[in-house]
């Protein structure tokens, strides 16, 4: 099941710079997208979401962009902090699917001081 893909397994960024995490999807019926952050041995922590009727949503240092024509979303973190180092998952859901979230494989972000 490759409906949601994160093609970069890892990303390294300098503290203070921008982190850009990417996610592609194939199912045009997805209408809600979320980003979660996960530390080892913990559950996913919700970061930010976006509905398919929008193309941008911002919350503090986190901004999610949605390009429906390209079936692509990205998470921007500005400025990046060492505490942002974690695995980031994008997830998508489709109406009338019982709330089922389809996750990407995750991208491990490392923010270096």
């Amino acid at each position: 099941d490759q409906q949601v893909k994160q093609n970069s397994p890892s990303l390294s960024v300098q503290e203070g710079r921008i982190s850009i995490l990417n996610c592609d999807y194939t199912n045009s019926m997805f209408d809600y997208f979320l980003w979660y952050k996960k530390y080892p041995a913990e559950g996913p922590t919700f970061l930010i979401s976006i509905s398919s009727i929008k193309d941008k949503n911002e919350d503090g240092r986190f901004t999610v962009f949605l390009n429906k024509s390209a079936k692509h979303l990205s998470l921007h973190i500005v400025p990046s902090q060492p505490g942002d180092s974690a695995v980031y998952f994008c997830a998508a859901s489709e109406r009338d699917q019982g709330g089922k979230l389809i996750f990407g494989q995750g991208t491990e972000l490392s923010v270096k001081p």
Partner: protein
Amino acid sequence: EPEVTQTPSHQVTQMGQEVILRCVPISNHLYFYWYRQILGQKVEFLVSFYNNEISEKSEIFDDQFSVERPDGSNFTLKIRSTKLEDSAMYFCASSDGLVQETQYFGPGTRLLVL
């Protein structure tokens, strides 16, 4: 801040044994979910549950699995006869609604089947 809790944090069991994983969702949430993550793989949806009924289930959620809301606060996942391949991290989640609502996850139960 309200959070989803899960018990136990770790469980080791023998193949063929039954296990029950427990979750306490966020108190005003009405929609509950189970996901699992096998080591090195994606987080996978197992089942969603609302109003004492399964809303959706994946092909993984076969007859060996069942869910229950035994009281007003707990939500459980039972695996009747565990297999080696059931070894995974199991996450419970809950949400306010079913459509375009954020799901909040618990810390997980690490299940190891020997």
